[in-house]
Every structure is written in C-alpha cells, then in structure tokens.
C-alpha cells in the first residue's frame, strides 16, 4: 500500500524505511520457518515474495523517489529480498528431504512376507550324481562313454566272459527282451559299455560310464528292478592293481572328503580277475564307532566300512574278445550302484523315493546333489 508522497523525501515513505523493511523480512523468515510442508512453503513464498508481498509493494515505491534516494532504497530492498530468498531456498531443501524420508517410511512393507512360492524346478539326484561322478573322472582325463539300455546279450554277457551256461547268468536275474532266445536283454550292468569302448576306442582307454541297468527284483525299500550304476574302465600299458586302488581312493576322497579311503575284499566277477568288493571307509564316523556303542554310527552300522561296489583287473579273456593283446595291455574296471551311493550319502531311507517322482523329494536336491 503506497502512502502519499508529497515532499519526495524518502524518509517520508515509510514503507521504504529500514524499520519497515526489517519488519517485513522478519515476518517472512518467521513464516518460512513456520512452514511444515512444501505446500505450506509455497503459500509462504507467494505471500512474502510474490507480486503483492510487502517487499514487492515497497519496491514499487522506489520509482517515485528522487534519483538521489533511489539507489539506497533499491539496495535496501534488494538485500531484504535476498535474505528472504535464501531462507526460502534452505527451507525448501529441508522440506524436500523431509518429504522424501516420509515417503520411504510410508512405502515400507513387511519384507518377511516374501517366500519362495513360485514352482521351483529340480533335477533328479540320480542325474546330478552321475554328473558329479563323471566330472571327477573327466578331471583326470577320462571320457564319458555310453551304450544302449536294451543290449545284445553278446555285449552284456558273452564278451564279458559270462558264457551262456555260466552260473552268473542266473545270478543276475535278467530281463529278456522279446523271446528268450532273441539275443537281446535289458542290460544287467553298465559293463557292456566296457566292451563297446574297447571295440570302438583307440588305446589307451580311460572312460567312465554311468547308466541305467535292470534286474528282475521287485521294488521294495532297498531293491528296484531298474537302477543305476557308474563304471570306470582303464586299459593301458602297465596298469596294475595299485592303479586300481589309487583310483578308487581318489574317487572316494572326491565324493566323501579328504582322507577317506577304500578297502578291497576278494570276490568274483567273470569279467575281472583278480576281483574284489570295494568297501568305503565310513565318511561319517571314520571308524570311530567300531566297538564303541556310545558313538554308534547309523551310516555304517558301526562297522566303520560301507559296502560300495565291485572291481578288479580286466580278465584277459575280455581283452581277447575285444581284440586287445593281454600281454601288452592290462586294465582295471570298477562299478558302484548309484541309488545305494545316494542312500548312504544323503540319508535316503527308501529306494521308492527315487523311483516315484514325488516333487517334494526331488525338489530338495535342486539343481545338484
């Protein structure tokens, strides 16, 4: 509001007086400090720096002043406006920070509601243990050999020194595909892959062969007519039983931990000689449970050893059947049941869990054992 200006004396223009300007500035600063949100601040900004604000109105009076007074009055108003704007800027920043903080608080959720609810895929532990075992041998330079599950009897038996009337043919209860004299069977072991490897590959041979095999056992907690084995075969010059033992120990350590060893007991398989059963040192108690009822071990039934598989030096007759000179080359082979390995390694108590395909079982293994 402009006052009459009769004498053109700035002193008379009260709105431009230092007192008046100081009061306006003080009012503005108080209002800025009192604004508690950006919206309130917007109103304060309009009231104290807008076109109709006291300082703006006072500024208009300058034009009517005598030239000598204009400069001082302009400086006075300019400083006052600068002070108010600076306060506004500071307060704006303060309120913006506050607004951002409040927003984050408002947007807070209960993060514990999140759970793995989407259907989670998994691979069968029999698949992944085959891969894990294969990798142990691939790292040694072996290759992964495969063969058909429906197999010629000749590969499954004859070439492995299991003659047509050999008791071993009844020992392994065989599924005959087609007529009983069709010459084809569901392979009873992965050993025919040994024969295929020896017939096809160049010497020396270092192969690992995991796979599905079949015997006419009814399904129960510890048997299945369809199960899996892994087998390794080495044919080279100068291969000895010592090589077999060293390889088994390396395999055992890779699967069950540092320092775990294997033990051999004499046995019989037509395709190896000498032949032996492979026992695995118990990886849970490491033998501490033997004769120690207070530290009983469920994994090895406190025997300290777990029956794991069979092995031996490749029978010269098998080498001959594959056209390999047994005077020049020797070899070893060993094989293990994978269901059995999974059972004692992972505490699976019932064979049927690995057969039935219940997703609750398989999901527990995820993408790898």
């Amino acid at each position, binding site marked *: 509001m402009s006052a009459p200006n009769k004498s053109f004396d700035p002193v008379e223009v009260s709105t431009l007086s230092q007192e008046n300007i100081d009061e306006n500035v003080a009012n503005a600063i108080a209002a800025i400090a009192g604004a508690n949100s950006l919206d309130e601040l917007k109103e304060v900004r309009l009231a104290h720096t807008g076109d109709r604000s006291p300082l703006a109105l006072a500024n208009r009076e300058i034009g009517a002043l005598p030239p000598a007074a204009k400069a001082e009055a302009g400086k006075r108003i300019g400083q006052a406006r600068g002070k108010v704007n600076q306060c506004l800027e500071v307060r704006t920043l303060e309120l913006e920070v506050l607004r951002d903080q409040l927003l984050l608080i408002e947007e807070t959720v209960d993060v514990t509601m999140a759970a793995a609810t989407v259907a989670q895929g998994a691979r069968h532990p029999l698949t992944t243990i085959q891969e894990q075992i294969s990798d142990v041998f691939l790292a040694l330079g072996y290759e992964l050999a495969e063969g*058909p599950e429906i197999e010629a009897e000749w590969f499954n038996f004859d070439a492995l020194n299991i003659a047509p009337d050999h008791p071993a043919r009844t020992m392994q209860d065989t599924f*005959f595909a087609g007529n009983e004299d069709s010459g*084809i069977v569901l392979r009873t072991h992965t050993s025919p892959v040994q024969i295929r490897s020896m017939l096809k590959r160049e010497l020396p041979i270092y192969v690992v062969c995991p796979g599905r095999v079949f015997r006419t056992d009814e399904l129960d907690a510890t048997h299945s007519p369809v199960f899996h084995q892994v087998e390794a075969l080495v044919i080279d010059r100068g291969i000895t039983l010592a090589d077999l*033992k060293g390889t088994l120990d390396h395999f055992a350590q890779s699967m069950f931990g540092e320092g775990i060893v294997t033990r051999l007991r004499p046995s019989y398989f037509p395709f190896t000689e*000498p032949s032996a059963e492979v026992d695995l040192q118990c990886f849970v108690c490491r033998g501490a449970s033997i004769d120690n009822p207070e530290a009983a071990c469920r994994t090895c039934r406190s025997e300290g050893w777990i029956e794991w598989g069979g092995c031996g030096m490749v029978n010269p007759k098998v080498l001959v059947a594959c056209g390999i000179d047994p005077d020049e080359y020797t070899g070893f082979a060993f094989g293990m049941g994978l269901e059995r390995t999974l059972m004692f390694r992972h505490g699976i108590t019932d064979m049927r869990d690995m057969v039935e395909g219940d*997703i609750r079982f398989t999901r527990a293994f995820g993408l790898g054992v």
Partner: protein
Amino acid sequence: MKAPVSWLRDFVVIPADATGRDVAELLLKVGFEVEGVDSVGDVQGPLVVGRVISIEELPDLKKPIRWCQVEVGAAHGNADTPGIRGIVCGARNFAEGDLVVVALPGTTLPGDFTIATRKTYGQISDGMICSAREIGLGDEHDGIIILPADSATPGDDAFPILGLGDQVLDIAVTPDRGYALSIRGLARELSIALGVEMTDPGQVLAELPAAAGEALACASDDTQACDLFVLQTLTGFDPKAPTPDFIKSRLAAVGVRSISLAVDVTNYVMFELGQPLHAFDADKISGTVRARRAVAGEKLETLDHVTRELVPDDLVIADDSGALSLAGTMGGLASEITDATTRIAIESAHFDPVVVARMSRRHKLSSESSRRFERGVDRMLAPIAAARVAELLISFGGAEFAGSAGVETAPAKSVIEFDPALPSRIAGHTYSQDLVKEILIAVGCTVTESAGAWAVTPPSWRPDLIVPIDLVEEIVRIDGFDNVPTRLPVAPKGRGLTQKQRLQRRAGLHLAGRGLVEVRNYPFVGVSELDALELAQDDVRRNALRLANSLSDEQPLMRTTLLPGLLTAVTRNISRGSTDVALYEIASVSLLRVGQSANGGTNPPRPEVNGRPNDSLLSELEALLPDQPLHFAAVLTGATSPAGWWGSAANYSWRDAITAVLNLGLELGVVIDVEAGVLAPWHPGRCASLSVNGVVIGHAGELSPRVLENLGLPKRAVALEIHLDVVLANAQSVASAPTVNTFPVAKEDIALIVADAVAAKDVLATIKDAAGELLEDVRLFDVYQGAQIGEGNKSLAFAMRFRASDRTLSSQEVAEAREGAIAAAQKLHGATLRG
C-alpha cells in the same frame, strides 16, 4: 553255505577260545564274506541230562498232564530230594527209564524265557523237560527229546550232547568257488588263514567190508557229460533206523530238514565233502544204471511231484525201464527211498558243469546238488564220498555192503605254464618267488620250478584254476589286497564331454531352471496305458518291444513314449496333495526297426570270444537292437505361479507346453517351427506339431479332454514330447556373438484385423519380411476378438522395434517400414489396420 564251527573243527585245529566271529574274520582275510554268525539254540544256564524215574498221571484235568520224578545227578537236586526233581510235563512220548533233557530253574530258553520253580496243577514243578523246538533246535514239537539209551549219565551237561552253543557261519560263496560249498573246502581256507595243516576228509577212502552180494551195474553213455560214475549197492538196510543226533543237528545247522537215515546220510556227506549223491531204492531198478541223454518225449516225475518233459539235451540216470532221475539235479519219485526200502543204490558221479547248469535252467530247478555241479565238483571225490555213505549206512542202518560198480574216463591232465613274476606285474607289488610258491602249495597246487615258466598243476578240487591269471588271483587273495600299494595312473589328455553330452546337461539345467522337476520313470508300459492315451490302433507307438519275463503282466512292453510314466507320476503327486505339478523326463525310448517283431528275432549271432568279432558280425549284433532315441517329455498341470497376496494365479496352458520346447530351442540355438498338428493324446484343436528343418520332432499342447478323463487328471493339463536327439544334433556348436547396436530404437505398434483362420505365425513372418532389415524385433502382444471388429475376425497387435546399425532413424524411414509391413499383411492375409 552254512558251516558250524564244530564241524570245521573236525578237520582243522582252530584255537579252542576262538569264537564264531574270530573264525569269520579269518575267512574274511582269505576272501570269504561271512554274512552272519548264529548260535545254535539260544540257551543259557543249567541244561542237563535227566532220567525219568517215575510217571504219575494227574487226574481230573482237561488235558492229560504227567507228574514226573526225574533223576538229574547229585549236583543238581534240591535239599528235599537229593539228585531228584519233580517236574510237571504235558508231553506223552516218553516212558520211565528214558533219558531226557532237563532245563533246571535258572535256565533261559530262546525268547528270553527263564525257567523257575513254580506251582502248577497242584504240584511244585522244579524245571522243564524240553522239546527240540523249546531249545531252538528246529521245529519238531511232536514231543520231548529222548536221548539214545546209555548215551549219557543223568547230570551230564546237555550242551555238547545237543550241539548247543555251537556257532554257525553263513558264508557267501562266489560262483567260481564250488569247492567251498563244503565243510572240507571251507576248512581248507581256514587252514590257509591260520597257517596250519588240515586233515582232508576228501582223501580218506573208508574201508568197507568185503562185497557180499550182487551189485547193480552202471555205465555212462556220454563220457563227456558223465566221466565218472560210481554205484554202491547195499542190502539189508533197516528203513526204520533213526538218524543219529549228530547228523540231525548238523543238518539242521546247515538248514536241511531230516527226512530218513538214507537221505540224511547222502546230504550229510554232500555238505561235508561237496560231492552230491543220490540214493535209489534198488528194488525199483531193473538192469544197468546208466547216465545217458534223454530221448525226445521222455517224461520224468521228480521228487517235487512235477512231471517234466525231457529234451535230448537233458542228462538222466536211467535203467532199462527209463529215466530214474535228472542227473545231478533231482531224483525221480518212482525210485525214491521209502520207509519200506531195504536195498539201496548210492549214485556218486561227476557231471559236466554246463550240462547240469543248462538242465537246471531249462527246468527252473535249482537244488543243492545242481548248485554244486554247476560250480564244479572235485572229480576225485566220487568213490570217496560213496564209500563214506556206505560206511555210515552200514554202521547206523544195519546195511550190508553188496558191492560196487564204477566207470571212469580219465581226464586230461591240466598243467598251467606260469611265470612267477606275473603276480607282481599284475598287482604292482613285489611278491617273492618263495611266497608265490608257498601260496600255490597252500591252495593245493603242485609246483615244478624251472628257470623260465613254472609248471603248476592245480588240485582236483580247483577246476576253476585254468590259466595263469587264475593263479595270480590266488596269490593276491591269500597275501591280501591290503599289501598292494596305491598309485593314481596318469590318463592321456581327455577331451571332456562331447558336444551332445554337454548340450544334454544344459537342456536339463535349462528345464529345471524354468521350474520343471525331473523324474526318472521305469521304462515299462502296458497296452492299457497306451489305450488311455487314445492312440490309434495303427499308431507306431504301439509297436513296442515285449519282455519275455516282465515283472508285471500289466506292463510287459518297453516304452515307445515317455508320456505314460510321466502321467502316472503326475497322478501320484496329485493324489498326495500336490496341485501344481510340472514334471519332465529325458530318457531313451525303444522303437522297433522296420520289420522288427515285438518278440525280437531268433537265432541271433553269437560271435566267438577268442578274438575281436569282424565288423559285419558286430553290425549284425547292433541290428538286433531296437532304435533307442533320446526323448524329452513333460506334463504340466495346475498353477505355474500360484495365487496369493501378490496377485492371481497363472495356470499352465497349451502355450506353456509349446514355449517350453521353443525356449529349449532358443537355449540350444535350434530354430523350432510350430504348426497346428493332430496327434493323440493331444486336444486336436490345441496341439502344435514341432519341427526342425522341416522334420517333425514332436508335439506339444493341451491333452485331449477324453485322455484327461481316462487318467483322472485335472482339466486343461498340458504335455509335450519331442525327439531330443534331433534337437541336440541341430544345436549350434559355437554360439556367435551379436553386434550390439547403440543407436536409438524406434518403437511402433500396429493392430491388424485378419480372419480367424489366419495363423498369427504367418502374419508375423510377413511383417518380418516386409518391414525390411530396419526391423530389429517384432512380437505379438495382444489378441482381440469381438463385435467391434466383426464376427470371424481377430485383431493381432504387434509391437515392432526398428533400428539401423549406422544412424539414428528418421521418422519417415520408420513410417515407410511400418507402412510396408501393413501393406504386405493386407496383400497376403487380407489384413486391415485397426483404427
């Protein structure tokens, strides 16, 4: 093979304090796995011999009960009646004066049943008179045990008399070691483990009285199959003579039931020596007893009351009237020993292992005898075992020795030329020549040393020792595997997994990573499962290989498709409460080759094993097998992502089945084409036929409502099955890197109205084609059907992305490309741009 320790002690000195466990450890050392050690009769405490002095029948009871006074020896009586105990007993098969077995108070019988003095039927019963079953000596509960008169004195410890407390080992004998199916053979192994000499009962010929009668004659018509045949004839045998207790208890310990003296003795000698024997009723035999091949059409009723049709490959023991028994396998019913038999013929022969094995397999008849012949019997045993049987029947059955007949074809002498350094070479461990020789002699070989190779003659009981490596096994076995050092052989540089193996792993990881759960089903399938899939009668998936001996009549076939197993597994999961189930399987199926029958062929090639078969023989072997391609199949049902506080559920639909395959193709770098297809078990309107390079690789989509109903599966369940082999074979071997374009992208959406029958895929292809190389990507993002666009039409909305590799596109360039695409769609598909 079960072996009582006491029986082993007859032939080898075992330390007196050795337990069954100790003996088991010794056998384990030389390679015999002992699966169990049992004690005969789990009895503890005062079990003594008693003599029944008096019997008083107690009156007025529901069943007859006796009150007996039993003399139990001065040390075992009680204060009131020194040396005598009063015992109440319900059995009735004993008389005053009989020797019985008494469990005195404090004795614990099997089942943890402790005898105590107690009042019963008005009397104080001060012990128990025992039956065989009550002390764990078999199943006989007909009455209490009566010991032979004067065989013991009242008060004697009954344990040794009954063989109680003896330990019986259950030994796993591998099929190469026939000799170990006998006490004799096991005693030998034990003697080796102990380092002591054994007394070999297999080398002691019993002295028989002079022949005093007419002996039956014997012959072998096939000296290959039966090279040794001994026939003893005994007369005057008392068919009622009981089997002595030591034979009974030993037979019980090895798991054989006592039948009659004659039969028990042949079994006893078989278990002791390893020679199977057979006793005939000689009065039922006419003429010469001969080993001969059966005649076609000949029949024989064996002891198990099965009438068997014989074939010319069978070997029989026959007389003038026909076949009497299946040689070395099972006796015939007509000539069996009965309770009236007084003249006995004992057959002790040596049969060819293969002949017996074939017969046993052909007639599905495995006996204690056939098991031994199949695994090889000591050829020298026949006369020794026959004499031993005669000796026992003479002494326990009152028989007289009438005479003996025998025929023999001398065997070829087998000598192994043996390099004594071979064991060291095979084992990677040095065995001294002295040690090698020592072990060979211990197992029974004769060794003639010379500068080069040794001449080693295996003993008669080791027909399994034929070639040098057999002797190496003996050296390693007896010296012990533990002495062999360990060494890790260095393999040549390997090439890692093959491309196919790598891709198969990757496929599995991809599928599981997308939420599918792997199953590994049995490969067996039944016709009813194929019917449930609504397969046409001429569907190739019905041409399945049939098993000759399937476990179940319901599933006699080998699967041609993975779907039945997957569907069963889905059903099982749902029945167990899971609702959202996505299962996959990667496995081989078997498909018959052209012209191959479900029953396979006959007369397959059987290459010799004395050298590598030639390639044509190997191809013939391969040709026997069905094709076994690798398949990938999946069944999906329920929610792919369930409903919850985050939103609503997304359910598996036909689209997921198809994209599962397409995405796998994307992962493996294989372009898979989709077309509408029709094939059971899919919904004919929701089935995609999938192909690679124009070759159909499989199908995917929704299962037909009928199939879902057949299987009781939820509506809208979807499935897929493809030939994974083809996909893997077409996979990109080396992924090529794209050029990442950094110029800005221009986006344009168009909605085209086309007739319902126009396939989205075709419109998409047209757009791609027409929009030119500026088009970076295009995808169908919306489909609309409704009145606005007219009946029988659909609106397909495509999102297009344009980009040039060398400049920022002008709006005019983008508009031209867009118009080009629209114009082409109009021309080729009658599409109109939706406003």
